[in-house]
C-alpha cells in the first residue's frame, strides 16, 4: 500500500466520524459540562488535523492502523446489548464481591455493577453521573494526558461520553480491588467505543484497580480507551489492564499516569485478545523518591498483531523504575514492543531497569522490539535488555533425560517462561486466574494424560 493510498482512505474514513461527532455534541453529549464540550471540540479539531498515524510515524513504525481506518463505525450512545450477570462470571477472577463497574458496549450498565460497601472516602461513579453529582472530581480530565499529537487520544477525547471516575481520599486504603469491566456482545458489531476513565488516588492512599476489556462475541468492533491516573504524594496504586477482547476486535488503549513525590505506581498489562491491538502505558515520575513498575505479558496466536508502547519519564531525582515485558508468539502473530526510559538532566540518581523477552513458538511468528534509553543526567544507573529466541534446547534435553516427553517439556518451559512475569502480580486472585489461564493455554499434553 502506498502512502498516498493510505492518506486517501483515511480522508474518506474520517467522514463517518464527522457525522458521529455531530450526533454526539448535538444529542446526548450536550449534557456534559461546558469545559468538557469545548475540550471535545478542540480534540476533534486535533484529530481532523492529525488523521490516523501511518507507519512513517516513528511511534507507529511497526503497526499499520490501516485495518482500523478502513472500517466505518457506529457510535453507540445509549444502553444496548443483552448481557446477563452470569455471562460475566469468567471475567471476575472468581470474586463477584469486588466493587465493579460494568460497561456494556461502551455504556454504563448499573444493573450489572456492584458499588455497595465502598469504604468511606472512596467515590466510584460512571462519567455521566460524575458530571452531574460531583463535577469537581472530573476537573482533572484532559489535564493528565495530552492529545495534540496523538490521533487516538484525540479521537477518544472528542467522543468522551462514558467511563469510570474513581476518587480515593487521602489516607484511605481500599482493601478490595475495584474492577472496571468493559464488555461487548454481538450488538457491538461495527461500532466504536471510546471509554474515558479517571483515577485519582489521594495522599498516602492505597488502591488496586483492574481495567478489563472483554467480549462475548467475535464481532468486529473498535475500542479506543484512555485512562488518566493521578497518584498523589506517598500513595500507591496497583493498576491491572486485562485486554481480552474478541479475536476480531481492534483495541487501542492508553493509560497515562502522573506520580507525585514518594508515590508508587505498579502496572501490569495482559494482552491476549483482538486482531490488532495497541496498548500505551506512560508514567511520569514527577516527584522525588517515586517508584514505577511496568510489567506485562502478551500471548498471541493466529494472525494477531499486538503492540505495546511504554514510556517511563524520570523528571525528578532519586526515583527508580522496573519494567519487564514478556511475549509468547505462536501462529503467524506479530508482536511489537517499544519501551522508552527518559531521564531528565535533573533526574540524578535514577535507577532504571527494563527488560523485554520474547519467545517465538512458530516459524511464522514475528517480533519487532525497540527498548530505548534517552538519558540526559550523568549520575544514573540505567540498563535495558532484550532477547528473542525459542526454547532452550539444553533445558529441553535435560527434561527429556529425566523422562519428561519432549512435548510436555516444551509446554512446561513455555508456561514457565510466561509464569515468570505473572509471579510479579501482587493481587492473589488475579495472579492465580492468569496462571490458570496460561496453564490451560499451553498445557494441552498434560490434559490429555
Amino acid at each position, binding site marked *: 500500500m502506498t502512502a498516498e493510498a493510505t492518506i486517501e482512505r483515511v480522508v474518506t474514513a474520517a467522514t463517518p466520524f464527522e457525522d458521529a461527532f455531530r450526533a454526539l455534541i448535538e444529542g446526548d453529549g450536550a449534557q456534559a459540562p461546558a469545559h468538557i464540550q469545548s475540550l471535545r471540540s478542540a480534540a476533534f479539531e486535533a484529530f481532523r488535523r492529525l488523521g490516523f498515524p501511518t507507519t512513517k510515524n516513528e511511534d507507529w513504525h*511497526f503497526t499499520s492502523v490501516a485495518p482500523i481506518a478502513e472500517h466505518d463505525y457506529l457510535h453507540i450512545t445509549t444502553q444496548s446489548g443483552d448481557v446477563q450477570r452470569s455471562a460475566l462470571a469468567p471475567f471476575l477472577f472468581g470474586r463477584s464481591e469486588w466493587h465493579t463497574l460494568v460497561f456494556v458496549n461502551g455504556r454504563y450498565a448499573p444493573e450489572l455493577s456492584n458499588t455497595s460497601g465502598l469504604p468511606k472516602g472512596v467515590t466510584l461513579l460512571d462519567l455521566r453521573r460524575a458530571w452531574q453529582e460531583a463535577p469537581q472530581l472530573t476537573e482533572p480530565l484532559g489535564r493528565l494526558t495530552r492529545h495534540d499529537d496523538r490521533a487516538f487520544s484525540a479521537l477518544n477525547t472528542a467522543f468522551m461520553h462514558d467511563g469510570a471516575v474513581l476518587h480515593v481520599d487521602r489516607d484511605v486504603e481500599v482493601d478490595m480491588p475495584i474492577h472496571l469491566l468493559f464488555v461487548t456482545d454481538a450488538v457491538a458489531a461495527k461500532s466504536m467505543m471510546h471509554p474515558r476513565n479517571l483515577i485519582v488516588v489521594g495522599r498516602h492512599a492505597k488502591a488496586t484497580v483492574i481495567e478489563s476489556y472483554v467480549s462475548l462475541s467475535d464481532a468486529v468492533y473498535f475500542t479506543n480507551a484512555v485512562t488518566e491516573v493521578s497518584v498523589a504524594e506517598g500513595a500507591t496504586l496497583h493498576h491491572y489492564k486485562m485486554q481480552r477482547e474478541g479475536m476480531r476486535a481492534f483495541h487501542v488503549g492508553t493509560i497515562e499516569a502522573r506520580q507525585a513525590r514518594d508515590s508508587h505506581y505498579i502496572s501490569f498489562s495482559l494482552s491476549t485478545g483482538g486482531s490488532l491491538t495497541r496498548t500505551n502505558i506512560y508514567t511520569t515520575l514527577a516527584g522525588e523518591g517515586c517508584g514505577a513498575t511496568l510489567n506485562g505479558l502478551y500471548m498471541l496466536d493466529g494472525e494477531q498483531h499486538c503492540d505495546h508502547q511504554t514510556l517511563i519519564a524520570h523528571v525528578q531525582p532519586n526515583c527508580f523504575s522496573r519494567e519487564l515485558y514478556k511475549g509468547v508468539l505462536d501462529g503467524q502473530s506479530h508482536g511489537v514492543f517499544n519501551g522508552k526510559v527518559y531521564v531528565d538532566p535533573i533526574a540524578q540518581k535514577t535507577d532504571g531497569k527494563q527488560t523485554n523477552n520474547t519467545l517465538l513458538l512458530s516459524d511464522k511468528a514475528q517480533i519487532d*522490539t525497540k527498548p530505548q534509553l534517552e538519558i540526559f543526567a550523568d549520575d544514573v544507573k540505567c540498563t535495558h535488555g532484550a532477547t*528473542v529466541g525459542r526454547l532452550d534446547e539444553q533445558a529441553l534435553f535435560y527434561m527429556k533425560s529425566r523422562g519428561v516427553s519432549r512435548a510436555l517439556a516444551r509446554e512446561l518451559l513455555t508456561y514457565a517462561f510466561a509464569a515468570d512475569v505473572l509471579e510479579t502480580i501482587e493481587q492473589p486472585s488475579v495472579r492465580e486466574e492468569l496462571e490458570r489461564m496460561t496453564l490451560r493455554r499451553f498445557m494441552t499434553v498434560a490434559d490429555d494424560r
Partner: protein
Amino acid sequence: MSSSIESLITKEYAAGFVTDVESDTLPPGLSEDVVRAISEKKEEPEWMLEWRLKAFRRWQSMPEPHWPNVKYEPIDYQGISYYSAPKKKKSLTSLDEVDPEVLRTYERLGIPLNEQKMLSGVAVDAIFDSVSVGTTMREELTKVGVIFMSLGEAVREYPELVRKYLGSVVPYSDNFFAALNSAVFSDGSFVYVPKGVRCPMELSTYFRINAADTGQFERTLVVADEGAYVSYLEGCTAPKRSTNQLHAAVVELVALPGATVKYSTVQNWYAGDKEGRGGIYNFVTKRGKAFANSKISWTQVETGSAITWKYPSVILQGDNSVGEFYSVAVVNNRQQADTGTKMIHIGKNTRSNIVSKGISAGEGNNSYRGRVQVLPKASGARNYTQCDSMLVGNRCGAHTFPYIEVANNTAIVEHEASTSKIGEDQIFYLKQRGLSAEQAVSMIVSGFCKEVFKELPMEFALEAQQLLGITLEGSVG
C-alpha cells in the same frame, strides 16, 4: 564533578592547520554540468559518467532525510564546491612528483608517505581534498596480485572489476547522501585481493580536507575474492574552519565466499569549536555484503566531526557469514553523534556481534541506533549486542535506539545496554595512587573502551587512545 574534570576535556585540535597549496577547484554549485566536468577531469569512460548522471537525477528527486537525533542548519548544496585537487597533478608515477607542501602536510599529521611507512609495512593511499595524491608500497602489493590504487585510476585500469562491484552494495539510489556521493565522488581507494591471497600488509587511506567551502565525497571499494583476507585502515583530518563542511562518503565492502574483510576507522575530522561553530558534517554510508562463510568486521573510533551520522552495516547474505561491529564514539562540547550499525541476517546460521561504547561529555549528544533484522529464512541466526554509555557531566546526553526485528523462531537475539558515570570513588582511588585526575579519567575511559581497542591494529590502537584522551581533555572537573 569538579573543575579538574572540566579542565581535562579541552584540548586544541592538533590537525587544524591549513596547507597553502594551489588547488584546482570547481566553482561552488551542483548541476549536470558539474557532474560532467568532474567526470571529464577524471578522464572517465562513458559508463561511469552515465552512472553518475543517473545518480544525480535520482538525488534531485529525493528529499533530504531528517530522522536522526541530530540538529544542524540546513545545508546549501549549491554553496559547496564539488571538486578540489592540488594543482600540478600530472600523472603521478612516484611520490617525488607530489607537491612537497602536500607531503609536509601528511608529515605534520604523522603520516609520512615515504620510507618510514615502508619500514612499518603499511601501504598508504593518501587523499588530499578530493583526489588521491599517492599510494605507497604498490610494488610489494603487485607481487601478490593485490590491487590497491585510487578509485579514479582503477576506473581506467580495471574498468570491468570496478563496474562489477561499484554500487553492488550501496546502490546509487540507496539514500540521499549516497546518491549525492555517487553523482559527484571525486576519488577514493580501490582494493582487490585475489582468490586465496592474504594481503601481506595493512592497507591504509588517509583523508584530508584542506580547501575551504568544499565537500569531500570519496568512495571506497574493497573486494576480497574467495578465501582472501584484507585489513584496511582509514584515518581522517581537516583544518579548523568556522564554517561547516560536508563529508558524504560511501564505503562498500564485498567479502566473497570464505573471505575476511576487516575495516578500521579512526575518524578525527575537525569537530568545531566549543560553541559548536564549524566542524565537519560526517554523513557517511558504509556497508558490506558478506557471502557464504565470509566475515566482515567494522571497527570505528569516532572522536571528531561536529556531527557524525553513520551506520556501518553488514548484509549477511551467505550462509554461515559473520558480521562484527566494534565502536567507540566520543562527543564533547557541542558534538553530536548518531551512529550504530545494521546487521541484516539473510543466510542460515549467520552470526553478528555488536559492541558499542558511547562517551558523552560537555554538551555532546551521543546516540546509538542499531537494527538487527532476522529475515524469515535466516534459520539459526545469532546476534549479541552490547551498548554501553558513559556520561561525563550533566549537560550531555546518551541515547539508545535499538531496533530488533525477528521473523524466524530459530534465531537467538540478545541486546544489553547500560548507562553509567565515572564514579568519584574510582577517581579518588586512582588519585591516591598518584595519578592526576586527568590520567585517572583517561585510564577509566580506556578500560571502558578496551573491548573495542583490542580489535584495532596496533598503531591505530595507540593513536585511538591518544585521540580519546585529547577529545576528553577538559571534560573532567
